[in-house]
């Protein structure tokens, strides 16, 4: 059947801010869907609160709303835009839940909007665990024994039935939030209570444990004619019990016979039919008892997902794009396969390589977090690697993680004796209890000679995988014999074919990586590049989507064109996320406009940059010097070795490519844009201080230290408090504010990695200063355009990535802004910046200080691009290729029409026990933007988008430290005037009463009951203002913040944040929030026009 003709205008809902369990894979799928829908002639109306997405670029949709994903505001969009249909399946759980809410409130019916892609009934059967279980029973498919509970008593009764361990799964939450495994009644009470709290419908499923069973996923698609295909099978290396997002996974499934696989495929077909997903993709998870092959269905997602993004990248089959077309009525056989061109999409991809996905955790950011992996996802990103064998793909995946010195599975050198210190029972525990470092423990156990059987007993990992790991270790042992210079060519070839990096081989012998590289090149051992073609070479591929492997025949077929290699940002981490992938995509767009052939290198399967559609050529490879250099050398060969110009650009992908810049330059690679030396200058404290000194730009007193003694000296010279941090980090990793010598000693002896090359940086901490971020673009001629001065809403001391900020700045004198602009231009010129630059400033006591300069793309680039309507990163790419700002028509600093607030989103709800207090180390995973005519409404929208429901009435709890008491007065007064009831602990209450403010007194947590935490749990407090900043926080504060987080009550920890919240509350009470598309903002159209 051809396309439906009744659909003209479609609403697409995005997934909102990046959170654990919902990351940039939904930008990838949403962008694909938008492109596909527009290509079919539909008008696309898009809503997504996340500005750091390609999908919210104004060119991607006809009407783009960066607005909070709440039913009210989306209804406002619907009322204004009158779409005739809604595609709910490309924006993750967020879009699905929101679509259900819109349907249930009658919004869709009221405005005549039809759902396409999935019906409400299908969504409910898939999402509601009881309906799903019953549906599976109808079609004779087993599920684990289970029952639903709406109270703790019901839950306890069920636990008795299913036995321990028991699994708790809250209904309708994302990425398993609030879920868990309970091994006894006590744990069960806690897990069930938490799950009931966190489920939006206060319901949990209590389920029989299938922990230790083999876990599989099928990515399937179905069209309106009931045609059904499996796009990809995925096997989890970590058996059941670890969330699939936290599992190492492999595609295709490797340990199923054809009979077992086809049986699972048949089940998947019955499931998608029964659930009623008429068109589109679904993800279905199964568990298989390794002892007898019994199969149970675990769950099904009636939408594109993280796994479908992985499956798309793993096979070359664009699931989201095809799903969008199927939703329009096309059948699979009416859609061509982009890669082979001649064959249709109605087939099942077959692959002739192995794909391994390895999750990336960020526990180092949350030292108090429990690192045990359970059914609730904890990883923040992932790396994917492709090889011809499992071993090769696995080793490539490990090096793609960029874990630095913690990354290698092997000893640090022949002399490394660290293993010996670990006692056996500790090692055993690290294998039995799944955790983020289990794979490293497993390799240590293999080095001790533990057998595959023993390891299987401990880990339940399938013996097939364990044997692969054992083979890797056995080969490493062979490689370690004798001297490196005596290593035979055959052995070196075997090592490379198995996936060992030059660095791995070098470490075995304690020699330099360069030596291995030389030997390898002398031997002519270079990777061949194979194509990902959906069909195992049965047909010709027209899409250069490539991976490297040590094989005979290379299919890279480089062109003779002038090309630029764009280095991506690698796996998502806190501090290095979607913003940099956004910039990399724009770099592609910019260089393409300048006539370059664009070559993308990245290893993050969630991203838009690794869509084969984005760049001209895509290499899915680790971002290490070895892997990148090999690609550049291959591309340089041109056609038949005739040669081609290859340059490289490193300023868009965040810290990952920057780490490679100097090495690439030394290897003779031309780096476009700002020179690596300038980048280094900005990172090098001493050189940079000298530069600022010469420019006459103030910066806080600073010093460096590589020892405790040096640190104390420096701190005394500078004066406490000081900010301390390691050099060369992103996202404030390891950064702290230190108030005295004792704390400084602890910091210096703590976990920080210090060396002569990498000293600890010590800066004066400017207490109570205001901070600003500036993004600017500079060109070869020294012209500088300032894209925006963003004022932080929180005071200094909170990492810029964790601070809300606003453009235009709202509380700063024009003369300071002029100073900031002036300094920015001077610094850009002095650093000879060609491209993007980000500068952080602090304003204290009427003095503007420079805190940090990064001559590269920053986290705020996409936000400022959305606010101004100028695609900054793309501009920077064109500038890097030699254009001037004037040529691009950019001569004035950019302005915004309206007020745009960016607010961060935090993962605290997933890490029970972790303090939610903010500091200099970045902890947020994502951000949202709120836009409006005034600051209050914009901030209110940003808070709303970030999931913080600012109350318009109710009770506010205030508890501030002594130094903040004076400043909290106006906030308290405003709140009282707005009709809020104030409540405070004794100290704060006495102070407020003394100043004539009426306030209730409430017990602190340790004073008695009911205390403030009880009120939070009972939801009789609607807002918390709690400022512990400045001194060591008390346990009581932590308990309050924690309780607030779990009860989803907004908890504001800074006073500037509190006054911003008051402004927002005023706006929320005074006006109905309206929505406005980016296109209208840029055109200056009035709200509601």
């Amino acid at each position: 059947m051809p396309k439906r003709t009744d659909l003209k205008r479609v609403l697409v809902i995005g997934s909102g801010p990046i959170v654990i369990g919902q990351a940039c894979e939904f930008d990838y799928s949403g962008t694909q869907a938008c492109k596909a829908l527009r290509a079919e002639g539909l008008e696309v109306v898009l809503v997504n609160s996340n500005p750091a997405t390609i999908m919210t670029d104004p060119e991607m949709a006809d009407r783009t709303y960066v607005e909070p994903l709440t039913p009210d505001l989306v209804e406002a969009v619907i009322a204004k835009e009158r779409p005739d249909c809604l595609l709910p399946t490309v924006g993750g759980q967020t879009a699905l839940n929101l679509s259900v809410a819109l349907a249930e409130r009658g919004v869709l019916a009221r405005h005549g909007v039809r759902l396409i892609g999935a019906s409400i009934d299908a969504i409910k059967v898939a999402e509601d665990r009881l309906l799903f279980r019953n549906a599976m029973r109808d079609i004779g498919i087993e599920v684990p024994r289970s029952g639903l509970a709406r109270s703790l008593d019901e839950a306890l009764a069920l636990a008795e039935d299913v036995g321990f361990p028991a699994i708790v799964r809250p209904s309708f939450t994302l990425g398993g939030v609030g879920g868990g495994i309970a091994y006894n009644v006590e744990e069960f009470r806690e897990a069930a209570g938490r799950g009931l709290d966190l489920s939006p419908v206060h319901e949990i499923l209590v389920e029989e444990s299938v922990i230790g069973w083999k876990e599989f996923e099928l990515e399937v698609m179905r069209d309106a004619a009931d045609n059904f295909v499996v796009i990809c099978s995925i096997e989890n290396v970590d058996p059941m019990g670890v969330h699939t997002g936290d599992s190492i996974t492999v595609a295709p499934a490797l340990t199923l016979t054809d009979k077992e696989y086809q049986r699972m495929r048949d089940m998947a077909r019955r499931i998608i039919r029964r659930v009623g997903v008429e068109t589109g993709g679904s993800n279905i998870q199964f568990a298989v008892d390794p002892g007898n092959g019994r199969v149970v269905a675990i769950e099904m997602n009636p939408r594109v997902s993280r796994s479908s993004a992985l499956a798309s990248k793993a096979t070359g089959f664009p699931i989201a794009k095809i799903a969008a077309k199927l939703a329009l009525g096309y059948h699979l056989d009416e859609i061509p396969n982009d890669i082979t061109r001649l064959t249709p999409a109605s087939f099942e991809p077959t692959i002739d390589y192995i794909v391994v996905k390895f999750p990336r955790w960020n526990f180092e950011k949350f030292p108090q977090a429990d690192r045990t992996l359970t059914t609730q996802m904890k990883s923040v990103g992932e790396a994917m690697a492709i090889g011809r064998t499992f071993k090769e793909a696995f080793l490539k995946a490990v090096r793609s993680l960029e874990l630095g010195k913690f990354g290698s599975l092997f000893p640090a050198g022949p002399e490394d004796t660290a293993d010996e210190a670990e006692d056996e029972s500790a090692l055993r525990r690290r294998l039995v209890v799944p955790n983020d470092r289990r794979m490293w423990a497993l390799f240590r156990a293999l080095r001790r000679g533990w057998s595959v059987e023993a390891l299987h007993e401990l880990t339940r990992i399938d013996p097939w995988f364990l044997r692969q790991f054992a083979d890797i270790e056995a080969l490493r042992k062979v490689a370690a014999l004798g001297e490196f210079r005596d290593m035979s060519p055959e052995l070196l070839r075997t090592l490379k074919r198995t996936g060992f990096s030059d660095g791995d081989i070098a470490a075995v012998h304690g020699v330099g990586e360069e030596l291995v590289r030389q030997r390898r090149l002398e031997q002519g051992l270079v990777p061949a590049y194979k194509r990902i073609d959906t069909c195992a070479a049965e047909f010709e591929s027209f899409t250069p989507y490539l991976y490297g492997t040590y094989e005979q025949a290379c299919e890279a077929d480089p062109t003779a064109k002038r090309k630029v290699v764009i280095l991506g940002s690698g796996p998502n981490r806190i501090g290095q996320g979607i913003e940099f992938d956004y910039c990399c995509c724009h770099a592609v767009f910019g260089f393409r406009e300048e006539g370059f052939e664009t070559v993308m290198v990245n290893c993050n399967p969630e991203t838009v940059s690794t869509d084969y559609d984005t760049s001209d050529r895509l290499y899915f490879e680790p971002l290490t010097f070895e892997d990148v250099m090999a690609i550049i050398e291959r591309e340089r060969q041109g056609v038949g070795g005739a040669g081609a110009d290859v340059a490289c650009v490193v300023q868009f992908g965040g810290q990952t490519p920057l780490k490679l810049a100097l090495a690439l330059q030394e290897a003779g690679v031309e780096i476009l844009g700002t020179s690596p030396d300038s980048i280094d200058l900005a990172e090098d404290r001493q050189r940079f201080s000298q530069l600022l000194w010469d420019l006459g730009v103030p910066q806080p007193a600073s010093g460096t230290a590589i020892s405790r003694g040096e640190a104390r000296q420096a701190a005394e010279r500078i004066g406490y408090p000081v900010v301390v941090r390691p050099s060369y980090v992103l996202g404030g990793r390891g950064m702290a504010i230190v108030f005295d010598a004792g704390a400084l000693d602890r910091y210096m002896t703590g976990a920080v990695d210090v060396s002569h090359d990498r000293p600890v940086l010590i800066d004066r901490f400017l207490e109570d200063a205001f901070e600003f971020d500036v993004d600017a673009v500079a060109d070869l001629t020294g012209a500088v355009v300032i894209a925006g001065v963003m004022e932080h809403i929180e005071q200094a001391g909170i990492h810029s990535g964790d601070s809300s900020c606003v453009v235009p700045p709202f509380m700063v004198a024009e003369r300071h802004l002029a100073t900031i602009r002036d300094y920015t231009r001077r610094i850009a010129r002095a650093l000879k910046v060609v491209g993007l630059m980000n500068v952080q400033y602090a304003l204290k006591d009427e003095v503007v200080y420079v805190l940090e300069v990064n001559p590269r793309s920053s986290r705020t680039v996409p936000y400022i691009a959305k606010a101004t309507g100028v695609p900054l990163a793309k501009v920077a790419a064109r500038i890097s290729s030699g254009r001037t700002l004037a040529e691009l028509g950019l001569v004035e600093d950019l302005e915004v029409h309206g007020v745009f607030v960016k607010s961060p989103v935090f993962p605290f709800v997933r890490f029970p026990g972790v303090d939610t207090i903010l500091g200099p180390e970045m902890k947020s995973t994502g951000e949202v933007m709120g836009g409006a005519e005034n600051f209050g409404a914009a901030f209110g929208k940003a808070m709303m988008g970030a999931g913080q429901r600012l109350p318009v009435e109710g009770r506010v709890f205030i508890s501030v430290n002594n130094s903040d008491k004076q400043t909290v007065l106006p906030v308290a007064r405003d709140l009282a005037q707005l009709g809020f009831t104030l409540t405070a602990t004794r100290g704060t209450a006495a102070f407020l009463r003394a100043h004539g403010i009426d306030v209730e007194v409430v017990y602190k947590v340790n004073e008695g009951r009911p205390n403030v935490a009880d009120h939070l749990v009972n939801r009789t407090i609607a807002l918390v203002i709690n400022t512990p900043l400045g001194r060591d926080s008390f346990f009581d504060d932590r308990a309050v913040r924690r309780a607030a987080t779990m009860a989803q009550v907004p908890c504001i920890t800074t006073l500037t944040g509190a006054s911003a919240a008051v402004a927002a509350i005023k706006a929320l009470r005074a006006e109905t929030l309206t929505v406005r598309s980016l296109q209208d903002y840029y055109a200056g159209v009035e709200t509601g026009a």
Partner: protein
Amino acid sequence: MNAILALEDGTWYRGVAAGAQGERSGEVVFNTSMTGYQEVLTDPSYAGQIVTMTAPLIGNYGVAAGDAESQAPQVAGFVMREESPLSSNWRADGTLRDYLVRHHVVAIADIDTRALTRVLRSAGVMRGVMATGQVDPDELVAKARAVPKMEGSDLVRGVTCARAYRWRERASAEGDAAHAEFGMPPCRRASRRLRVAAYDFGVKWNILRRLDAYGCDVQVFPAATPARELLAIEPDGIFLSNGPGDPAALHYAIDNVRQLVAAGRPLFGICLGHQILGLAVGGETFKLKFGHRGANHPVKDLDSGKVEITSQNHGFAVNPDSLPADVRVTHLNLYDGTVEGFRHTTRPVFSVQYHPEASPGPHDADYLFQQFLESMEER
């Protein structure tokens, strides 16, 4: 141990021996199925062929008695990227390596199978020789050029059964019945006892298992059995099996099938059986460049408009333009538009080029057995 695979075009690949030792020759083909290597090894249609698996890791789940498609491996040789040293599956009764050695299958691993596949895709299937030990590649190339071509050769005689048998008796004697249903959901049984006379041109056991599962009592006949002997058992239906080689060389089979079509009994053919039927009704067959071998080929049912994902293994195809007016093409391959099935317009006779019995591959086309059942029940 060293091993080499040499092709008639002069290219050769050095790898390691992964099965029995020795030298084997045949037509080199590739199969793109990601699972089911044991079913491939034991499929008699691969007689005379050296099969390259494009899936890079082979042997992971070992071998299991219930996964065999005939008594022993049938391939002339086997080519892999990496062989698994360990079998991991609850159904496994041994490793692939032991199985290959026990059954004298010469196999090679550690070669760039994707490069080989691309060569076969571009140049078409080729004759080749593989040998283990210290061998001279040039000598092997010369031998490859001397291998008889597939066209015109009758490979069926080498794989058909020696004498007629009842599948039910044989299955229970072989212990096959115990595994037969694994993975395939039970299906509807015939409304009455149906007797099927099947020509064994190299039949895959799963076809017989499926017919049995649908309630048919299958009597299997050697390929050269005269048609009247089949008719003598008063069958409710006739079945023409899959098998190896060039259908046009099988004059005796074509003649017999012509008589059976004329007899008016319900008749169902699969793969080689489909090609023989095509020839029997007056059509022609031709050799495809590199054939269809895999488990992901989309086939469109022209009556329902639905697409089936099918299991395929064939090097020859029926030319649609050569078919007479009373034969209607019912199924097309969506990759290259070749004929995947046809039906006689006036007689209960139909056939498909692909493998509804799957094994390996998806079960999408299992409904064809039911259609056969219905045509027999209607009679």
